[in-house]
């Protein structure tokens, strides 16, 4: 696969007030048990931006992705994706908590790749990728299969259509999972520590692929990772989290070399 990024997509400028926002968190609070994981969190992401969330474990990074994927619901606050609220809907002229049907429509715009891949072990690779395009988006099986084969070529696994996930290495499974997420043509791709469960020698292949996707598409990416080199490479913006809040955000060059916040400096010196 071509990992050369000599001709990168022009990076969008930093978000300005009033500019289009694809994702918006407005005073989002989430607690688990008695622990407040997110504390009145506000941030927004412009279309096409690649944003990396860093911070100590337990700082709420993964919870942000899970809120966007509607795997958990916020206690208070609202989340908007591409102008549609994930948390509320208007019914009969009134704003009410979002119902299952509304949520399912909005989250079609969002794809997620998990730490543990979560491929469907009872389906072959090709069907893992075509299942949702056929049954959720309503593509014809032929169309979905064509799209799936293209994506499998993209992730370098064109010859594994008929394999079961258990016959693949962790790195290959994760690449199938990326293809599966992309097959839904999401506007937002969430990456939740996608290399953490991989053997060290398999990490590079997956990161190269994601780097290609980041540089070659206008898909908006939100990425939780401990791979700081990768974060630096693909991000337009890095957000440093601590105790449920964004304590610092900015371009990777700034955050990784000259952070404003002492807490960021401590964290980076611990992981770099």
């Amino acid at each position, binding site marked *: 696969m071509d990992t050369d990024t000599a001709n990168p997509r022009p990076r969008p400028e930093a978000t300005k007030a009033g500019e289009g926002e694809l994702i918006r968190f407005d005073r989002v609070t989430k607690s688990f048990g008695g622990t407040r994981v997110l504390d009145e969190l506000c941030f927004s992401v412009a279309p096409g931006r690649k944003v990396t969330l860093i911070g100590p474990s337990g700082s709420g990074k993964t919870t942000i992705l899970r809120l966007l*994927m509607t795997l958990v619901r916020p206690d208070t606050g609202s989340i908007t994706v591409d102008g549609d609220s994930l948390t509320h809907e208007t019914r009969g002229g009134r704003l009410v908590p979002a119902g299952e049907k509304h949520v399912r429509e909005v989250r079609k715009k969002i*794809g997620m790749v*998990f730490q543990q891949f979560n491929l*469907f072990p009872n*389906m072959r690779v090709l069907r893992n990728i075509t299942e949702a395009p056929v*049954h*959720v988006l309503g593509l014809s099986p032929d169309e979905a299969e064509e799209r799936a084969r293209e994506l499998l070529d993209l992730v370098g696994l064109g010859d594994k259509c008929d394999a079961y996930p258990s016959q693949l290495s962790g790195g290959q499974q994760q690449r199938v999972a990326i293809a*599966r*997420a992309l097959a*839904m043509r999401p506007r937002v791709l969430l990456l939740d520590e996608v290399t953490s469960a991989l053997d060290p020698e398999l990490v590079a292949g997956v990161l190269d692929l994601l780097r290609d996707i980041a540089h070659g598409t206008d898909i908006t990416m939100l990425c939780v990772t401990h791979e700081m080199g990768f974060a630096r490479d693909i991000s337009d913006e890095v957000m440093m989290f601590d105790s449920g809040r964004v304590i610092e955000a900015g371009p990777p060059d700034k955050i990784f070399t000259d952070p404003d916040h002492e807490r960021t400096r401590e964290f980076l010196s611990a992981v770099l």
Partner: protein
Amino acid sequence: MTWDWSVAWDFLPQLLDGLLITLEATALGSVLSFTLGLVWAAALRSPTRLVRWPVAGVVEFVRNTPLLVQLFFFYYVLPDWGLQFSALATGVIALGLHYSTYTAEVYRAGIDAVPHGQWEAAVALSMSRPRTWFAVILPQAIRRVVPALGNYVIAMLKDSPLLALIGVVDMLQEARAEGASSFQYIEPYTMVGIAFIVIAYPASLLLRALERRLGH
């Protein structure tokens, strides 16, 4: 008392007739218990208490009362309510219902054993609930529980002679009839016992092999 081969030989056709009925009752009872058990398992996971609680009550009640009592109840009481079935159909319903309360437990364990990430992946792909159940969760759950379900088929096979008590002409009933008319008991009952072993033992070996192949 000595073994008389001619008696055994004479009894063989009846034994085979009874065997067919025994197998029929077991097979139909299995199908019913597998289906009903899945219905119970799904209902017990319903978000609505109005569904969950009554089903839990019925399941506990059926599981904790003897099959023979249920069999007599269905055979003698249901006709009073206008529900008239043949003895065999009554037996199949009782067997299937009784064992469905066990298969429901088996399904529950199988569904619980499907990793949580599978549900999350289905959500991330915006799959509908029914599609998630039928395409993702149940195929994985059922694969895990095939050996456990198989054990209940063998248990049902061994409980099927109870059906003789409501007049189903299975192997046991054939043996009783033979004994009553010829006063020969040792051959028919021994042969019935052997017939059960000949079916049940290979079946349990098959299940063990299956268990290994499904790889746990």
